[in-house]
């Protein structure tokens, strides 16, 4: 039962706000805004599941997203390149960043925390270089706009990207050999290596996946916003980590997993949305995120103390 506690809490949050602010909370607009706003953060978070499952940190995802947001917007405004080609180019940039991270972490042996932190700063420089330190705005092609703003079955299209991504990552981690090896790499790299797992390869691929997913999320955000804010990317980092760690207490307890992360993203967003609609102060949002994470993971760790399978942090 414990492993679904997040869903109950989510239900409880919905119930509270439904009673508190029924006229604004329980509307299709709120539902749609929630689904759409969180799709980008959700994708980044679900992508992050992969390196964390393999036991490495990727702190560069926020800046990868920030960079492709600016770069995709710039290309749309200044060149006539087809939208699909732009998307592919941006994902390729993500792959390149992931490879560079992996080179530092796997080949040279730099701690992943430090390597990806350095990468973040390098990408920040690129963001400022491409944008010339100014917000980029201009006319977007309809094709590009629809990529981020279309509505399917009453829900925004990006929500379905997130759903698809979660499904794929869940499936790979749970139902393929690679997934099992990835978790073994994250659990005990020395033992995994001695069981014949090529741990280096899994770390490399995981860093490529998280960066490529973040790059794709950047394109989606560009299409959704219709302009490129220079500061939109990096703040996605903390909510993504929050969701992954909170999510590791759900569905597959004690194990970082994709569906748990998805539930966590929406649990947190619903709470924040409800608070906003109830007219509370702005700082309440961050407080809510922080307290929920600390409590959820704290309780999970406390209850499992000295017990296994364990290890919430990679």
């Amino acid at each position, binding site marked *: 039962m414990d492993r679904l506690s997040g869903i109950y809490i989510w239900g409880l949050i919905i119930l509270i706000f439904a009673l508190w602010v029924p006229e604004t909370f329980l509307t299709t607009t709120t539902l749609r805004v929630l689904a759409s706003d969180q799709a980008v953060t959700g994708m980044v978070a679900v992508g992050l599941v992969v390196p964390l499952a393999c036991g490495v940190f990727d702190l560069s995802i926020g800046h990868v997203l920030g960079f492709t947001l600016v770069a995709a917007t710039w290309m749309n405004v200044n060149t006539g390149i087809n939208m699909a080609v732009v998307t592919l180019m941006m994902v390729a940039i993500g792959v390149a960043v992931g490879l560079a991270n992996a080179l530092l972490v796997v080949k040279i042996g730099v701690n992943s925390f430090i390597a990806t932190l350095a990468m973040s700063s390098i990408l920040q420089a690129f963001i400022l270089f491409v944008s010339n330190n100014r917000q980029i705005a201009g006319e977007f092609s309809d094709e590009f706009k629809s990529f981020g703003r279309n509505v399917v079955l009453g829900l925004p299209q990006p929500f379905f990207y997130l759903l698809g991504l979660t499904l794929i990552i869940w499936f790979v981690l*749970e*139902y*393929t*050999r690679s*997934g*099992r090896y990835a*978790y*073994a790499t*994250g*659990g*005990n790299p*020395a*033992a*995994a*290596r*001695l*069981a*014949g*797992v*090529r741990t280096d390869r899994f770390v490399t691929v995981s860093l490529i996946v998280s960066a490529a997913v973040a790059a794709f999320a950047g394109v989606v955000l560009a299409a959704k916003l219709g302009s490129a804010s220079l500061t939109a990317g990096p703040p996605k980092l903390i909510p993504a980590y929050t969701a992954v760690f909170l999510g590791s207490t759900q569905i597959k307890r*004690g*194990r970082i997993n994709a569906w748990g992360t998805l539930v966590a993203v929406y649990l947190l967003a619903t709470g924040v949305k409800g608070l906003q609609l109830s007219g509370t102060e702005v700082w309440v949002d961050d407080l809510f995120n922080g307290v929920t994470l600390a409590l959820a993971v704290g309780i999970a760790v406390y209850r499992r103390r000295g*017990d*296994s*399978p*364990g*290890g919430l942090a990679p």
Partner: protein
Amino acid sequence: MTDLVRAGAAVTVAGGESLLEVRGVSKAFGPTEALVDVDFDVRAGEIHALVGQNGSGKSTLVKILAGVYDPDGGSIAAEGSEFDPRRPGEARLRGLRFVHQDLGLVDSLDVVENLALGRGYDVRFPRRISWRHERHRTRAALAELGYDLDVRSLVGSLRASERSGIAIARALDGWESAARLLVLDEPTASLPEAEVARLFDVIRTIRARGVGVIYVSHHLDEVLDLADRVTILRDGARVGTFAADDLDHDRMVELIVGRGSVIAGGEAETPGAPAEYEPSLVVEDLSGTVLRGVSLQVGAGEVVGVAGLTGSGREELGPALFGAAGRSGSVSVRGNPVPAGRPDLAVAAGLGFVPADRKSLGLVASMVVRENVTLADLRPYLRGGILRHRKERSDVDAWLGMLDVRPRNQTLGTMRLSGGNQQKVLLARWLRIQPRVLVLDEPTQGVDVGAKAEIHRRITDAARDGAGVLVCSTDSAELVRVCDRVLVMQRGGIGAELLGRDISEERIDRLCLS
């Protein structure tokens, strides 16, 4: 009574006042009696060696003195008054200092900082550390032991004997009280031979200052060279305490091994008829940290044991073969070469490896039993690239049943199992893939009697099914039980080989010590 014993002992060897007296100390772990009614004493200005095989009780005795274990009975006195090592700070206050085998140094700190660990710094107003004063103090402490080194260098960058020296200097450094008694636990285990002499000079310097030294070792030549008195333990009991001058190498081996011995040199005279095996594992000229040019073969269906003291290369052989530790030389399984540094290719070539340290190198703690069993090969459960959990579950259940893993619950966190059951899980991982060669390092370490018998049975079965098995173990009885042939490692090479009926605990132990 106590006075009589003390007086009697004093006659045997001239020495200073008594620093430590252990009387009738016993300790049992469950049904295993680790120490039985042991007497032991140390006097000022003497080096008293404590020797015995693995499991003879010497480390248990040291741990009782260090306050790690609570003795079941007996008394300990330091300088004439009762001494309870379990009381925090007591050992230090009474002048007892320990240098454990791993030295307990922090590689990323410099010499000054390492010496200050535990003791702390002298501070000036306002709580400022005077580094100049600390450096001076450190240099003085090291100079007393005859060391002259740059105290600002990181400990990780120093030579092995210098590191030992620092650990000793730290132990002797006066905190609340001056050091009276120094306990050195296997101080030469990780020391290259050339640096041993240097360490001995240091130990003699300490003795000259009137400090008593307890020297724990199983290198008999060192003991004869260094010690004034020698206490020999066997199976937890004291065989006797002797003046080192009254002992020689052979006599000591006799006393350590016991069983009233017949063979002189320890060489096997009548080798049993060597059985014919097709070679499964061929190792040529394998070298590593300690290993030097080791060549060996293991036949299909043969169980070969590897014995040897810690530091002889025994503990390095398994990891080196498998490519987990750095090495040179060639390893091949049925003609397929196994490259260094690629355990995945070793597995693909048909090599399985159960490491000695199952917690950090064997099992993945965050995974359940089922996932740990199947980690080495998931191919049987794949259909179209998709893992079939049902097939995996039924297969693992069968293996848990076969090896009698209790509880037979594959969804349990692996670390919730007992040591013996954890080891069976690890064994199941490798037996399941039917390796051509299975290398086991200390396969029954920390395992209960029932599980031990089961593991031995499985080793024999695997060989009967055609696998070549290499068992590296410090448990001679285990080697006698399962092996067709036993290799004894000495100083990085294979020193001797025992075949068939010539394999006995006594022979193995003797050859290890020679």
